[in-house]
């Protein structure tokens, strides 16, 4: 018995030890799990504890609602316009040289544009508009020398079989890449000159000097078509979604934009084609007298001079709209009203007449808003002839009852760049117009004006108004 009792005691002692160990492990697991749960479900847990406490204490528990995560609306950076152009210059390219008895190449030139993010766009021209200083003038780029898609435009022959079309454009990530390509182009032309003038043996010399590849193809090209054709292809009104008149003829977008801007006779449409992506941008140049009437959309006060505008529709390779851009330039610092609201559009107040303001509003179009944009593009106003394109679309700074304008208010980016010391009004306007033809962002035109301020519409603030905020990334 004693042996049995002694054995039982030893067995009891062993079980107790194992049980104690298990209790410790389970307790540790519970503590760890509780900490993890508290960390993961802290708001919910707190709310549940709050409700439990309220139930026990007999209170209502109404204050125990889970605190929702703070909703962050769009901030100013969400409305910051795309990078603006910082510097532009023109270079005359000395392709016209005599090699032995042959003239090699012709006059040519490049328009080189540097943007705030360091990227560079280079456009080939015939160099005819480039003065001795290399200054950029409205003559530097002549849209009249562009082809129309059917007929080729002006050919720029750099010699050695290197030919580009007027307006062909390359895009580079940095100025160094452009300089590298320019050096390679020079070397390639030398190589072609050697081969051309020494057919049998020149290739060996060229090879021995290091064989040069031909310059890469341009990514972007420009064409110019008449307005009617441009409307047809750019706005796609001949597709099944287009509208037809009583005779069954397709109706076109009439650029008579209310009372504000109208397409003048002979207006052309500039088509910018991105060969790499298949994107095409159709830019419609619009002009209107500043002396608009009361219903007008631009300025209810006494607007001076002529207002020029441009409207660009960009479509991807499948023909879907991907971007809308509204552009305008107006001379004079006029404090007036835009739309139905007061807006300081220029330098403000009775400012110097040498101020000019360039306004650009850009709307990115994707699947979420394409239906709205397509509907707007095919919309007609009350007269049944004109697309409703109020000029206030240029500055969508406050909410609107119109769904499209409201969408611009919610999504579009708008930059307003003011220029002082416009030395030549005509030249300045022509330069801006050239910018539209290129599809450029527009800023300082050294030849005619200095950009002194750059602002953009920020996120909606008090009263739902989107204030103008200095854009230091463009003009410091």
């Amino acid at each position: 018995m004693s042996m049995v009792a002694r054995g039982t005691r030893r067995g009891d002692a062993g079980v107790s030890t194992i049980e104690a160990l298990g209790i410790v492990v389970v307790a540790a697991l519970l503590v760890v799990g509780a900490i993890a749960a508290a960390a993961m479900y802290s708001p919910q847990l707190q709310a549940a504890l709050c409700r439990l406490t309220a139930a026990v204490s007999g209170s209502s528990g109404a204050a125990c609602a889970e605190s929702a995560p703070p909703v962050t609306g769009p901030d100013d950076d969400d409305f910051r316009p795309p990078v603006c152009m910082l510097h532009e210059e023109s270079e005359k390219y000395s392709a016209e040289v005599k090699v032995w008895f042959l003239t090699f190449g012709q006059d040519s030139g490049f328009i080189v544009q540097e943007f705030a993010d360091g990227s560079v766009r280079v456009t080939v021209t015939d160099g005819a508009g480039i003065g001795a200083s290399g200054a950029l003038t409205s003559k530097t780029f002549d849209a009249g020398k562009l082809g129309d898609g059917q007929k080729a435009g002006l050919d720029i022959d750099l010699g050695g079989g290197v030919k580009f079309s007027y307006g062909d454009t390359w895009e580079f990530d940095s100025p160094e890449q452009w300089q590298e390509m320019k050096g390679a182009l020079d070397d390639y032309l030398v190589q072609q000159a050697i081969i051309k003038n020494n057919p049998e043996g020149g290739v060996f010399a060229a090879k021995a000097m290091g064989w040069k590849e031909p310059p890469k193809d341009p990514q972007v090209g420009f064409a110019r078509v008449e307005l009617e054709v441009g409307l047809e292809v750019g706005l796609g009104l001949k597709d099944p979604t287009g509208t037809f008149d009583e005779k069954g003829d397709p109706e076109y977008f009439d650029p008579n934009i209310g009372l504000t801007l109208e397409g003048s006779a002979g207006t052309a449409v500039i088509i910018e084609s991105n060969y790499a992506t298949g994107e095409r941008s159709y830019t419609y140049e619009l002009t209107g007298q500043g002396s608009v009437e009361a219903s007008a959309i631009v300025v209810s006060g006494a607007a001076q001079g002529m207002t020029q505008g441009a409207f660009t529709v960009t479509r991807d390779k499948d023909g879907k709209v991907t971007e809308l851009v509204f552009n305008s330039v107006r001379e004079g610092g006029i404090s007036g009203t835009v739309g139905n609201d007061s807006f300081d559009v220029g330098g403000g107040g009775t400012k110097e007449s040498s101020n000019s303001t360039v306004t650009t509003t850009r709307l990115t179009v994707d699947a979420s808003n394409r239906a709205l944009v397509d509907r707007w593009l095919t919309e007609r106003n009350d007269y049944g002839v004109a697309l409703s394109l109020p000029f206030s679309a240029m500055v969508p700074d406050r909410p609107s009852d119109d769904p499209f304008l409201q969408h611009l208010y919610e999504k579009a980016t708008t930059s307003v760049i003011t220029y002082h010391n416009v030395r030549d009004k005509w030249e300045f306007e022509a330069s801006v117009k050239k910018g539209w033809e290129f599809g450029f962002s527009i800023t300082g035109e050294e030849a005619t004006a200095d950009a002194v301020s750059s602002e953009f519409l920020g996120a909606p603030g008090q009263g739902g108004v989107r204030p103008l905020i200095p854009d230091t990334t463009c003009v410091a």
Partner: protein
Amino acid sequence: MTGLRRPADVGVLDLVLCWTGGLVGYLVGEYGTGALVAATIGDGGAAAVPSWVWLPWVAGPLLCGVVAAVVLVLLRARPAWWHWPLVGGLVPLAAAPVTWFVTLGAAGGELAVGVLVQVLLAACAGAASGALARAGGRLLPARRQPDAPPTYSS
């Protein structure tokens, strides 16, 4: 005269060594003068191309033929007369497809004429070098023949 009557003992390995030497001469001649042309042009562009831009075309095969012949002489073999143009002329011919490939066919039909001229130049350079070597007599001792195996005699 006696050399012509002697059986040639230029083996395949000898030819390969000569062609290798010829290739080195070809590359040095072509690319060396090419660098010279490039340095002359500098940043002057197409207008600065010198009138002697044909030099790489000619210098490569000439140096090829000479170097290949020198290697043949150094090998102390007993070549037949046709070995001299052979060791020089084959290299430009073999290099022609490479040139076509590298230059993306830019030379077109003229490349055939260019290569033919190079082959002739290299062959002539090789033959001329061989003639000079032969005219110079046996300046170098003949290739040493291995000793006869020892024999036992009782």
